[in-house]
Every structure is written in C-alpha cells, then in structure tokens.
C-alpha cells in the first residue's frame, strides 16, 4: 500500500498551510486583544478615579449673602466680605441659637476674634453654602452648558470647579458633609495600624522563615521533620485564606477574648478604651499582623534561600556556630530581599478593608488616634464608607481618598524597588 498518497497533494498542501496560517494569525489577534483589554481595564479604573476627584459642583447658599447684608446692615449695596467685625458679630448674634453662641464664646469670645475669623463663621454658620450637585470631570467638560443652566434654575446657587483632593482634604478631620470632610484621622489611623502590624509581623515572620530555611532542613528527628513539613504546608495554606476570615478570628480573639489587653485596660490606659470595647488600633494591627504573617514568611524564606550556600559553608568551615553564621552572613545578605517582601506585605495590609470592618473599625470619628488603644478608622474604611453612601458628593471624596491611598502604595512600592536595586548593587 502506498501510504504517501494519503497526504494531500502539493497544491492542496499549500492551501491547507495558508489556512492554518490564517487561523494562527486570527488567534494571535484574539490573544493580543485580550491583553489590550486587560491593560485597558487598568486605564479605565484609574481614569474613573481621577475623573471622580475633580469636577464642577453646584453650590447653593441657605441664605444668600446679599440678603444678609440687606437685612442686617444699613449699607445694602456692600458685599458681605467687606463688612466690619462689629457687623459680623451682630449678624452672628441675630442668627445663631443661644446655645451655639455660648459654645462659640467659651471656645474664644467673639469680641476677641479677628475680622477674618468672624467672616468665616458667618459664611459657615449663616450663609451655609452646600454642594447640592456634583459632576465628574467628563461631565464638567462635555455638559458644561447644561450644568450652568441647572445652577441658574436654583436660587442662591452658583457653579464652582472643585478639586476634591486638596490640602484641606488631607489635613481635615472627618465631617458629616462631604465638602468639609478630610482624611487626616483615617490617614493617621492607617499609619498606626500598619505600625503595629509591622512591629509584630516582621520579627515573627523573619524568625519563622529563618527556622524553616536554616534549621528545619537539618533536623534528624522524624517527628520534628514531620512537624516542620506540617508547618510549611500550613503556612502555604494560610496565605490562601480569605482576609475576612482573619477578621472573624480577630473579632473573636483580640476584640472579644483579649479585650482587657487590646482595650488597654490591663495597662491602665482607659482613655477611650472604655468605649472602644477592644475595637482598637491594637486589635486591628494584630489582626492584620496575622494576615500578612504567612506572606512575610514566604517572602523571607525566598530571600534567605537566595543566599548562596557557599557563604554558609565558608562561615561554618571557620568553626562558626549556626546562629553566628545566620546573624553575620545570611541575614545581612538576605536583608534587602526580606525588606522588599515586607514592604509588599505592608502594601497588602494597607489596602485591606474587610477584616477591619469585621474587627470593628469606627465609621465616624473626628479625634486623632493617640495610641494603640484608640478607636480607629483607616483610609480604606473611609473609602468604603464614602463609596457606600448614596450621595454623589461622597463618591467624589471617596475618589479623592483613593488617590491618597494609591499614592501611598505607589511610594511604598517605589521604595521597595529602590531598596532592591541599591542593595543588590552593593552586594556585588
């Protein structure tokens, strides 16, 4: 039998090849398009945030400034900001409740306040400008006329361009109205929580990694060997546990079980620990520490494994003990890798939200955290809270807070990369 004849003939062959090539080309385009789509989704995601953080707002005054000037002064044509301190004081006394006046006076007597301060009070308390409608950057550009028309239809209102992300936003405290709210408390809260997380997780994680890489391998006892294998598997599995489970663990162990400790009562620090019920920075920090512990361990193990074996041999060959070898040679060489891994884990912790909600982040606090036993909120919690609000203006400050968070993360990652590059050069 002639087997060759079962193959296609020359011309057929060429047609077949052309078809195969065409299909190949088609699929290459499909793969490329999929990849482009992925890149595009990142771009859209970032674009969507930036667009949310800037744009036109329609501001409406509760009482128009002109009306105030007309009612309370004998110079009806004057602008509100040109009045004298006495006139401002008069306006305030006429419009504010007794209780509020008393409170303001007790903070600092109105008679002693400067003209600018009084003017600001009048605007804040009497004119009460409020953002009634906000627009994204895209709408602001493409539907400018419509926005202005809408503003014209509302009494005492005007259109302003607003950068939601500004210095006041960074330094301002929480507030119930979006245009006055800031992320200061949340930013400080995030830093506090992360500090505790790092202080706890870094030494433990590195220690565990050293044990697993430097000691576990040379253990002879079969039971201990098995235990070490269990520990390693366990760490790998822990790294895959959803973060919210850690939140539940933190709730049961740190918030509830160790309340005396995490509320600071055991140390006599009951400032606001008494009201926090263990829902403190300490609990949050410890919870996140457990969360990133497996990640730190795995990263540190990799860094330690990358230290050449010859270095250990050289040291041991000189009669150094195991710990002398680790402390003097292995750790210094592995340090950049360990730090890089730690920074990446810290970014992970900084971006966590769910476990903190479960552990009991406060949704609204205006006082700066002053220690590990304070109640807390974090940037991510604020972003979540604001995003979940129905009003558009809260979405705007959520976007602004996201930018703050992303810049923070970007800085951390840049630091990690710099660190890696610098040390890897010095080692050679």
């Amino acid at each position: 039998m002639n087997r060759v004849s079962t193959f296609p003939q020359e011309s057929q062959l060429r047609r077949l090849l052309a078809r195969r090539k065409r299909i190949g080309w088609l699929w290459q385009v499909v793969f490329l398009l999929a990849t482009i789509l992925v890149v595009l989704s990142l771009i859209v995601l970032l674009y969507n945030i930036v667009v949310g953080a800037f744009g036109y707002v329609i501001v409406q005054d509760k009482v128009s400034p002109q009306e105030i000037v007309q009612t309370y002064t004998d110079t009806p044509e004057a602008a509100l900001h040109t009045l004298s301190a006495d006139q401002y004081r008069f306006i305030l006394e006429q419009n504010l409740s007794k209780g509020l006046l008393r409170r303001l006076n007790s903070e600092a007597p109105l008679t002693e306040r400067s003209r600018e301060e009084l003017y600001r009070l009048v605007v804040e308390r009497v004119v009460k400008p409020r953002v009634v409608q906000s627009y994204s950057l895209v709408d602001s550009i493409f539907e400018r006329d419509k926005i202005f028309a809408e503003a014209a239809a509302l009494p005492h209102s005007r259109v302003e361009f607003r950068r939601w992300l500004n210095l006041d936003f960074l330094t301002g405290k929480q507030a119930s109205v979006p245009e006055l709210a800031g992320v200061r408390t949340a930013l400080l809260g995030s830093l506090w929580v992360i500090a505790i997380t790092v202080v706890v997780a870094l030494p433990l994680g590195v220690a565990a990694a050293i044990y697993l890489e430097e000691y576990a391998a040379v253990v002879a006892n079969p039971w201990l060997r098995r235990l070490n294998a269990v520990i390693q598997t366990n760490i790998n599995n822990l790294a895959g546990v959803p973060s919210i489970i850690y939140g539940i663990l933190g709730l049961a162990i740190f918030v509830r079980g160790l309340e005396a400790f995490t509320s600071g009562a055991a140390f006599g620090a009951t400032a606001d620990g008494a009201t926090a019920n263990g829902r403190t920075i300490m609990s949050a920090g410890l919870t996140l520490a457990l969360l990133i512990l497996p990640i730190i361990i795995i990263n540190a193990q990799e860094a330690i494994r990358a230290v050449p074996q010859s270095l250990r041999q050289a040291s041991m060959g000189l009669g150094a003990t195991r710990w002398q070898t680790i402390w003097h040679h292995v750790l210094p060489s592995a340090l950049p890798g360990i730090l890089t891994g730690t920074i990446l884990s810290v970014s992970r912790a900084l971006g966590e939200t769910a476990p903190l909600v479960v552990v009991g982040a406060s949704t609204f606090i205006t006082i700066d955290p002053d220690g590990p036993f304070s109640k807390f909120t974090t940037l991510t919690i604020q972003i979540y809270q604001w995003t979940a609000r129905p009003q558009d203006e809260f979405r705007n400050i959520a976007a602004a807070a996201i930018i703050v968070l992303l810049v923070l993360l970007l800085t951390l990652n840049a630091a990690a990369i710099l660190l890696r590059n610098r040390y890897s050069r010095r080692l050679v």
Partner: protein
Amino acid sequence: MNNGTYAIELQNLNCYYETFRAVKDVNLQVKRNRITAFIGPSGCGKSTVLRAINRMNDLIPGARVEGQVLFKGQNLYDPAVDPVEVRRRIGMVFQKPNPFPKSIYENVAWGARINGFKGNMDELVEQSLREAALWDEVKDKLHQSGLSLSGGQQQRLCIARAIAIRPEIILMDEPASALDPIATLKIEDLMRELVKNYTIIIVTHNMQQAARVSDYTAFFMMDRADRAGMLVEFNETGKIFTNPTDRRTEDYITGRFG
C-alpha cells in the same frame, strides 16, 4: 597511640546521602605536615570523603556517615564531639572562592573574632595574609570588599581566612579548578609553603597538580556495581604516578580511562 605520625585516619568510612551509599569502606592514614591528594574521576566521592573529615556533611540534610574518622586518635564522630569544635581545628577551602561580602580585613578577622581571639587583630590579619602570599597585593586596600579581588586573589584570601584561626589541618576541595594557570601556580607554591606548618588534604582532578604538589596520593573510583565510591590505591605520590600497583590506577593516570 599513634598520635605522632597521623593527623587523620579513616577507618571503614561509609558515606550516605539518604539511602544512596556514595562512598564505601575507605581506610586511609594521613600523615602530619604532608600534602595528601585525593584524585579520581568526578562523582567518585572525593569531596564527600573530604567533607566527612571536618563534619561539613552534617550540614547536608539526609547525609550520614558510618565508620570512624580519627583525629590524632580521637573519633570525630563520637556523639560527644561537637562539630563546631572540629571545624575550628580542621579548616576548609572550597572549590569556588567564597569570600564574605565584607572587606578584605574583615574576611580574615571574622573567624578569629567569633572564636574569641583577644590579641592584636591587625597583626593577625597581616600575618595571615602574608602566609597566604597575598599581603603585598592587598595591603593598600584592606578595607575594600573581598569581592573586588580577582579570582586567584579571592581564593588566597579564603586561604588566609582559614589559617587565621590556626587550624591543624586544612582541607582543600579543588581549590584551583576555577582559576587561571598563573593563579593556580601561586596556590600550588603557597601550599608547599603552608605544609611546613599544617597538614593539607587536597582534592583535585588535575593529575599534574597532584603529582607536583602532593606527598601522598589516594586514588578513588566508582564501583560499577553499586555506584559507590571506593579507595583503589593509596601510596606515596611518586609510587602512584610511576609505579601503581593497581591496573585501574594505571589506566586512570595514563589517561586511558576517566
């Protein structure tokens, strides 16, 4: 006691990696203040035997040694013996130069320091570097990284580092295999100097090197049957290279096999 002549005696030495027997039934006496060379085709267990002598094999998971290694009559595998103490007295130089990522000075001083040296460190460093024939080349840059030296210099630095703790025996595992001929020559000359004060055991696959520097030569080979390395012949170097008793040794050194 045979304290006087032998620095190391191997008695029925068997080395295992997990279940694989890499070396079987080695019996060998290493004379003091002599250079003993281990030669043989690669994979025949030379390095394994060498590492067994200062218990570096303890560091390899699953590695196991049976039989005895006598150091001046004392079995080093006695359960009471501390491997760390052993390595203080039996130093080692590795195949690839492996200086610490520290300064030249620190490379030499570190071992002495962790071993509790209290004397004048500058003197010790200088003396060790001189003994390793490196002093003149590095005396002006003692605080540069050890890694900035050339390969041959790095290896001599490793030798200086090893002798800074005054071991009695120096083990060298193919110390010149990663070096160029000139650097190799320097190391070989250095070994002839060092042997006045130390006992040296060197693993080499280079027969010229063994013939030139060593006083005694041990020829190892792999047993075809069980792939375990074994000692075929051990004698004065002159005899091994001119008049071997074993056919296999002759085949190997004349290049007919290997």
